[in-house]
Each structure stands twice: as C-alpha cells, then as structure tokens.
C-alpha cells in the first residue's frame, strides 16, 4: 500500500475528559485507502523534548466529511502539544502505516476460516482497554459493512476513561468493565460475563499488553482466532530503523510494518 507524507488541516480538536482529545483532520485531496488497525506518524513541532514523530492509530475514517479521527491520550510533552492545536492548524502526517486487522473479505487475512453463527453472521468480539479502544471504532465500522456482527467489550480504570461510547453503539452491542465498578461490570475485560455466555468466532484486541495477553490466553483456551495490536515504541514507522521489533516465532520483526496487528499465535507470549 502506498505511503504518503503531507500536511493535513485540523478541523476540530475536542477535549475529552479527563486527559484525552479527539482530533479531526482533513487532507488537501481525498483520503487514500486506509485499513482499520493502521496508524499515522505525526510530526510534533515546538516541543524541544519531543524529537520523534508520534505514532497514533486511526480511530475512524469519515469519508463523507473527508476526515480522519485520532483519539489521543495526553501522556507526555508530545501529546500535550497535540492537545493545543486549533482548527485551521496544519499537522504533518506520514500515513497509512502498518498492516491493519484482518477483515472477512481480506484476501491477505491470516487464513482462518470464520465459523458462521446461526443467523449466518460471524460474531466478532472487539476488546479494547484504555486508549487502546481507538482503532476498534474504525474496525467495528468496517466489519459491520462487510456482513459481520461486531460486539465491543471496552474496559477502563473508571467511568471517565470510557470514551466515545455513543460512537461504538452505532455499529454493535457495547459491553463495558471498569476496575472500580463505576460503570458496567466491575473488574477487567477478561472477567466480563459475556465471555462465559457467548461464543465468538474471532477476537480482536488492542490495549495494555497485560490485558492483551489475558485476552490472547482466553482465545487460545477456547480455540478462537485472535488478533492483537501492539504499540512498541518506534522511531521511523516505516521499517527502516528496526527499533520497534517484537520477538515472534520467526525472530525479531518490525511492529511498524509487519504489525502492529499480529495473530496472537505468531508471538512468543507465554499463554
């Protein structure tokens, strides 16, 4: 897939409680093909301690408005700088990067045949934690277009960290957990009752590594194909520097080009 380097114009920058922002951006021309699970690298100006670009996953592609959405957690200087940008400002983007999640019609999918559920729509579960929910909105949207029935299971520390709920509800059922029990079921996503009561055909997950490892373990024990999206720290984002490698059964490979999405059984996680 061809990659691009261009300035995009900020259309909106919406602060989300407690420390997130939702940035909507448009390019000069039309948005090229992008896959759910892919990311962009944003150049950060005016922040002396931020040298490298910031990789941010594509939250949503709104083709009608010709916008992409980025959901950003304010973690350090770079992301705080992003929170300051205003409509009309320009951001320099490198995109679209990485491989993306497998979609049913994707001929390059990892080769898993998806069992059909009774009403003949494969049931796919999308499990997100914290800001890791970001790529799952775009994924849920694309799945719903391709004849799948996405269900979202989203976890956070507390109610305030559950973001964009109304958006997720547009494309499928949404279940939630919070660690403090302030919303949805109390506990971690892997403790949610839906995992005991419903059998899914495919699981996608993105979030903190311990959460994804627990999800991958659940999938493995139940013989469900599972894709995880990693967020190793990276420099170039295009497979040149080999900084972001993950140890896989085939050796060290770049998360930025051969990932960020991996089938969990490609990895050497002990599950």
């Amino acid at each position, binding site marked *: 897939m061809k990659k691009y380097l261009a300035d995009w114009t900020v259309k909106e920058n919406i602060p989300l409680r407690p420390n997130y922002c939702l940035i909507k951006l448009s390019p000069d021309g039309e948005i090229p093909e992008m896959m759910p699970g892919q990311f962009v690298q944003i150049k950060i100006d005016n922040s002396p301690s931020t040298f490298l670009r910031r990789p941010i996953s594509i939250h949503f592609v709104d083709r009608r408005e010709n916008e992409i959405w980025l959901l950003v957690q304010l973690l350090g200087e770079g992301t705080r700088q992003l929170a300051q940008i205003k409509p009309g400002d320009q951001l320099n983007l490198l995109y679209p990067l990485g491989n993306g999640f497998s979609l049913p019609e994707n001929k390059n999918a990892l080769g898993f045949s998806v069992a059909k559920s009774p009403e003949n729509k494969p049931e796919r579960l999308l499990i997100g934690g914290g800001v890791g929910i970001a790529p799952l909105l775009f994924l849920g949207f694309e799945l719903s277009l391709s004849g799948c029935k996405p269900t979202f299971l989203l976890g956070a520390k507390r109610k305030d960290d559950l973001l964009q709920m109304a958006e997720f509800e547009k494309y499928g059922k949404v279940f939630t957990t919070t660690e403090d029990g302030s919303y949805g079921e109390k506990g971690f996503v892997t403790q949610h009752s839906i995992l005991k009561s419903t059998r899914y055909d495919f699981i996608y997950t993105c979030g903190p590594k311990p959460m994804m490892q627990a999800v991958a373990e659940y999938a493995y024990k139940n013989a469900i194909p599972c894709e995880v999206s990693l967020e190793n720290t990276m420099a170039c984002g295009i497979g040149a520097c080999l900084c972001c*490698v993950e140890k896989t059964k085939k050796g060290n490979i770049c998360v930025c080009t051969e990932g960020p999405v991996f089938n969990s059984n490609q990895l050497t996680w002990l599950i």
Partner: protein
Amino acid sequence: MADLNINIGKLSLRNPVLTASGTFGYGLEYADFIDLSKLGGMVVKGTTLHPREGNDYPRMAETPSGMLNAVGLQNKGAEWFTNVIYPTVKDLNTNIIVNVSGSTIEDYAACAEQMDTLNKVPAIELNISCPNVKQGGMAFGTNCKSAAEVVKAVRKIYHKTLIVKLSPNVTDITEIARTVEAEGADAVSLINTLLGMAIDAEKRKPVLSTLTGGLSGPCIKPVALRMVYQTYRAVKIPIIGMGGICNWKDAIEFILAGATAVQIGTYNFIDPAVSIKVVDGINAYLDRHGFQSVKELVGGLECG
C-alpha cells in the same frame, strides 16, 4: 546551478548527500517519499557475513533533540543481501554503498569479499564503530592496532572504494583516522553514534535492554562538527561528515569543517524527504554565494 559532483576514492557522486546506514533501510522504504535517484548515494543497513537477530526490545529511547538506539546490527546476512535485496536495488540509479560489519576480522573480510563481487555496489563502508554489539564493532574502532588490522585485511581483498566509519568514543579520533588512511582506506566517515544511556526514574531501571546505546540526532552535531574539523587537518583522504544533520545549513557547516560529502541519518525518521531538501538547499546556497562547485567549499571555514 552550481556543480554538485564530488569524488570519494574511485566513486563519483552526483551530489554530496548520502543517507546514513541504519536509518534508511535498503532505500526502498523511502521510495514513496523521494526520488532515490536524486541522492548522491545510500549507505544501506549494516550487513554481516551471517544473519543476526540484534538485541532484545526495548532498543530505542527518545532523548532531548535525539535518540538512543541499541538495534545491534539486526540483518539477514551477506548472502540474503546478495540474493534478495541486491536485485531490487541495483537499478535504482544511485550509489549503493553497503555498510559492512563483523565480529571477527575474518568475518569482515569475507563479507567485504562478497560485496566486491556485486557490480552495482561501488563502495563499502567498513563499520568499526557500532557501539551495540558485544563482539567486534566499536572494539575494532577504538584502538589503532585493531583498526589497522581490520582495514588491512579488508583492503587486501576489496578492490573498490573503501570507506571506514569511525567511532567518536575515543580520546583522539585523528589517530584512528591517520591509522586507517595509512592502511589504504579511500575515505573516512564520521561520526558513528556516541555511547549513551537512558534511565527510567519511576521504574528505577535502564530504558534499553542493553543498558547503553548509541546517541544520534541534532544533540550530537557540535561533537561531530568538531571531530570532522580535527580530522580534516589530520588526513588527506576525503571525509564524509555526519551527526545530527537536519537541513541544508547543517550540511554546509559540515562541508565548511572539511567534509567532502555528508550523510543524513536520524532526521530521515522525522522527515523522510529531508535528504532531497538538503540537496536543493546546498545548491541554492552555492548559487547565492557565487560558488561554481561544491568542492570549493570543502574545508572553507574562515578562522580569522
């Protein structure tokens, strides 16, 4: 339009801008962003005789105005380069220079010998300065005796342009430069990364799996400029300067300090199109100051 052509040993370059090893993959990673044939050359990823897995993750730490890396020469080996990469890059119409590394003198020589057979690889850059491998690498480049041995062994079997990449992690870089010149190096390139470290205060742990790594980016530019300036006064062979170049102005500074050509490294990560902007910027500078050729500017620093 000034004349940007330069020569390094037997190598003729259409302009003095190359991309630095380890920051540019095999070039193809950047083909969507720039016309590779507009580069003076590309120094491709460090290659060893046998495949190497590199170091464990984490291998990178961002630092003020730079970054540390501890990749550890991950590559699939000389054979793989020859069979898989070479056919895809040989007709890119730019100078492909392979960065050659090894754990032993025999490995360096065998890898260089293989590169000698590739028609469209007109030069190698001998890496005696990688700080991220346990054996070899920087160990060869930090004392004159071992630097001399490895260059001598490679010079014996390698017939094309031999560039030796020097480590800044030494007391006096000019001693090493003179030593490799005496052993037949056609040029030196400097500097490789500076040995550094990053610590996570909250976790009370080192950031890199290897504890230390190589520092690069604009934070090292003053050190690199000083070393190019000193080396220019110590050797007669051409110098390829690098270390934190982010724009044409940085490149001009290196040329004034004595570099015949420059390499752009870490900044490719921030702006994948920077190398071509530097070529254009050098050209505009020469026109603006009335120089006919970039060669007139080499070592042109006026110290009053």
